[in-house]
């Protein structure tokens, strides 16, 4: 079964065409800078050759047309005709309380996703644009939506509610939703497979450290708490996002700097985090270089970043009343051995024991990085949301066929 996975962002579309039965990636890539100058499509062929197609791409529909065009082209393609695509799986950011698992896309589903725009104004519209483009270009191909929020719908009410007037929950749906759900679900599953543990009887903390960062407590296969909330701003310190801060700062600043809601949002989302503290970059590689050159603020930023992760792990050990397995993933989680090391060294009270060598050599590949005697297993699992989306899509399509 050949499944096309699409991830439509506000100015990009990432794609991957997978042959799930043979477990092969047939082609992948993305269109960047949609609607801007200098837009291009970067395609990686099955033989790993990179192809860059430059030209004007004004909207998502056009981007997807080009993606389908290159996938079926004689020169760089991997399929002969579009009919070979059995299904399309979409990443959809916000499913609010309407979706607790992946679903086959119907008109009713589209309507519900539209209803979520109110609380995800930046993310859901491009996702919908992708769905409508496929409906137009491949009208007979079934589509599946996989939600970032769905995995966290198992959080108990006391974990997802905010201590603010209840009426705001009923009126606007203000509660904690959590994000990166597909990633947390994938790496927790995969870690248990990898380490031969029973997913449904394990206490897991998954730490996703990428551009955005979030951490999830999983008990017996269910997310019971996660660090991102109503928006992806809450929780850990991130590249440019502040994560948890005292809300009093916001009201204080509104008065002191005479700024309104949109500037405030940019301040906390784009000027803060590692970039804001270091004043250098949001990229951990730049931070490491700066630290090596003796930059104090870069060091402070990294110390804060790591401390806040450790603090959250501690909190989630309490939520779970123990932990069997900690999983690192995401760009930083998969590659930055020093960050993992520092965090683990602060968790010796849990019986975490690091395997220094395994940790140092684990870069972007699956690895157990705790020692044989460690009471808690610690693993690195590269995330693969596209695979998860494709595998959900396949399951749903197969069930649909049975009916």
């Amino acid at each position, binding site marked *: 079964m050949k499944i096309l996975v699409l991830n439509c962002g506000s100015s990009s579309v990432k794609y991957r065409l997978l042959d799930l039965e043979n477990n092969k990636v047939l082609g992948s890539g993305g269109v960047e800078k949609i*609607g*801007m*100058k*200098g837009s*291009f*499509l*970067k395609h990686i062929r099955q033989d*790993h*050759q*990179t*192809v*860059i*197609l*430059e*030209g*004007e*791409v*004004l*909207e998502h*529909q*056009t981007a997807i*047309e*080009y993606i*389908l*065009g*290159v996938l079926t*082209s004689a020169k*760089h393609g991997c399929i002969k005709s579009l009919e070979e695509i059995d299904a399309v799986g979409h990443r959809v950011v916000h499913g609010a309380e309407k979706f607790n698992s992946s679903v086959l896309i119907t008109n009713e589903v589209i309507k519900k996703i539209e209803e979520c725009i109110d609380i995800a104004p930046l993310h859901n519209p491009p996702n919908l644009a992708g769905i409508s483009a496929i409906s137009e*270009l491949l009208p007979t191909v079934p589509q599946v939506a996989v939600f970032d929020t769905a995995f966290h719908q198992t959080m108990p009410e006391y974990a997802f509610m905010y201590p603010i007037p209840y009426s705001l929950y009923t009126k606007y749906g203000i509660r904690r939703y959590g994000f990166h759900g597909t990633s947390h679900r994938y790496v927790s599953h995969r870690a248990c497979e990898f380490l031969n543990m029973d997913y449904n009887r394990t206490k897991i903390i998954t730490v996703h450290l990428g551009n955005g960062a979030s951490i999830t407590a999983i008990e017996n296969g269910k997310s019971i708490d996660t660090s991102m909330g109503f928006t992806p701003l809450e929780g850990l310190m991130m590249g*440019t996002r502040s994560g948890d801060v005292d809300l009093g700062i916001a009201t204080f600043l509104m008065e002191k*700097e*005479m*700024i*309104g809601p*949109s*500037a*405030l949002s*940019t*301040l906390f989302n*784009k*000027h803060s985090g590692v970039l804001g503290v270091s004043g250098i970059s949001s990229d951990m590689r730049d931070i490491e270089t700066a630290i090596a050159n003796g930059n104090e603020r870069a060091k402070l930023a990294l110390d804060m970043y790591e401390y806040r992760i450790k603090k959250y792990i501690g909190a989630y050990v309490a939520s779970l009343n123990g932990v069997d397995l900690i999983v690192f993933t995401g760009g930083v989680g998969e590659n930055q051995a020093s960050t993992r090391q520092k965090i683990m060294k602060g968790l010796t009270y849990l019986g975490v024991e690091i395997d220094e060598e395994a940790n140092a050599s684990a870069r972007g590949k699956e690895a157990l990085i705790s020692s044989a005697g460690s009471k808690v297993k610690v693993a690195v699992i590269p995330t693969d949301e596209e695979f998860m989306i494709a595998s959900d899509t396949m399951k749903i399509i197969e069930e649909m066929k049975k009916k």
Partner: protein
Amino acid sequence: MSQPIIEPIEKYGLSKRSRRRTLFSKIGVVGCGNEGSAIATIALLNGIEVVFLEPTEEKIANAFTRIERKLNKRIQNWGLTENEKKIALSRVQGTTKYKDFTGCDFVIEAVRYDDQTGERHVEERKEVFLQLEKVLSPQAIIASNVSTVVITELASELQYKERCIGLHFLSNVPGSNIIEIVRGLYTSDETYEKICQFARLINHQYVAVAESAGLVSIRLFLIELNEACEMLMEGISNVEDIDKVLTVGFGHRLGVFRTADQMGIEKIVKLMENLYQEYGNQKYKPSPVLLRLSRAKHFGVKKGKGFYEYDESGNILK
């Protein structure tokens, strides 16, 4: 690893049909002074490509500086990042030739007020409209940034009059996200609808106002300003305190005198004279206080002195 293969994207489209362009993906601005550059900046920040026209290369460079200054101010106020500024600036193009407006869905005329007289010449603006018609498709909208009765007159000499419409951005009040949309006698419903869509696209609220001198915003503002000047003359209160009552008491953002300084006293005097002429009512006659400032060339922020005194970056000195 082998080098990437680089090719043009066009031949990989699924069909030969022309790509559907989204409405308002590219707009034009004629005259990129204070108001023109404010409009251009708003459009840029909302992902729209902008072409602006100025008569000389030097003025184009100045306009770029103005736009950049506006973006920098946003960065200072935490509302924008350096990267977003770069992206925004990559969308703007300055030109001295009308033919570069080809392909725009919408062009707005924002020719400057005359430095000396504070007027905007109708003949000059008519010429702009005629030039635009030559290069634009018949569906493209031609607009003018207006607050006086002029749009019907500007439209009257065009072949496709129904595509003309007036817009009034309150560009002198920071963060005022509202547009007055002015329908002339010829303006079609379709043109009006499209402009409403444009307003939503740039995250602005809008109200429809009949073609009239001063519309709602300027007419109310001028009366308020005249009355405030009256109070100064009567010795009832002073500049700072009157603005304080308005800002603290009524929640106005700047107060009436600061807003006047932003707009430029010379423009205000001309606008009042225009309203006086149109409505014939004494209440629109510019107050002697305004005339005195205007004669002294104390035009406001840009001259460093008006009702208040300002430093070079436009901050109040006292």
